[in-house]
């Protein structure tokens, strides 16, 4: 997976309400949409919509148990997202570190030239 290409995944995680739902799923294992709806500041319908988007992005799976539908986080997919994010952040940290060294060296060189 290239982090950039996986727009569906990032859009799913990018929404604060969906992050709240993900958060609850991660902390509580397998739960129903009604259970989630009691714990978020939005409607049962909104919860269902968010779950559908998360499922589409592969972050959540569901199974039927009796008359209930239970949702859970797909840990591998979440790990994948975490790694992709960490790789990109690390790449920028390397680049910013290099910029810092170059700019500080250039500044030090310019200052020492100014000395009489």
């Amino acid at each position, binding site marked *: 997976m290239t982090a*950039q290409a996986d727009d569906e995944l*990032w859009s799913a995680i990018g929404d604060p309400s969906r992050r709240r739902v993900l958060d609850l799923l991660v902390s509580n294992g397998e739960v129903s949409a009604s259970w989630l709806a009691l714990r978020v500041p939005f409607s049962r319908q909104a919860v269902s919509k968010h779950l559908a988007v998360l499922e589409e992005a592969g972050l959540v799976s569901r199974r039927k148990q009796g008359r209930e539908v239970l949702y859970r986080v797909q840990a591998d997919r979440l790990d994948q997202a*975490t790694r992709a994010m960490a790789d*990109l952040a690390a790449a920028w940290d390397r*680049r910013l*570190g290099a*910029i810092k060294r170059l*700019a500080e060296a250039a500044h030090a060189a*310019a200052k020492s030239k100014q000395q009489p």
Partner: protein
Amino acid sequence: MTPGLVIEREVLIEAPAEVVWRTITEPDQMSLWFADRVDLVVEPGAHGYMRFGDQGGPVVVETVDPPNRFSFRWNHPLGEEPVAGNSMLVEFALTPEGEERTRLRVVESGHELRDWPDGEKQRYADEHREGWGEFLDRLAGVLAERRPG
């Protein structure tokens, strides 16, 4: 609309903003911290090319506001022009903190935040204080703890 991937990082540099600006925008300097080779004219709308080893791709410059803001698009599908929607936008913001110190912040994002109404931007910023990296790290940490073995 929800933005795609958003990465935000920053660094404090012991040099004036003008020096930092030259380091991030001059092509021969860019080839020291970014790509192996950078062919680019730093002007809004200019098309350039970045080479990494035997790979590479076009870059399109967006904002040039020395020594405060510099942005470009890259990472779009091969053979396409980078525009909003198919590419990543990289935005540098330089903030002087005293005469010889500059805070350099970079935001790489999949969709543009800048076209949003200010109220929406503020709401987005308020809701993302935690940052995606921290959010994902935390969730992955909780999951790892619960795994057997």
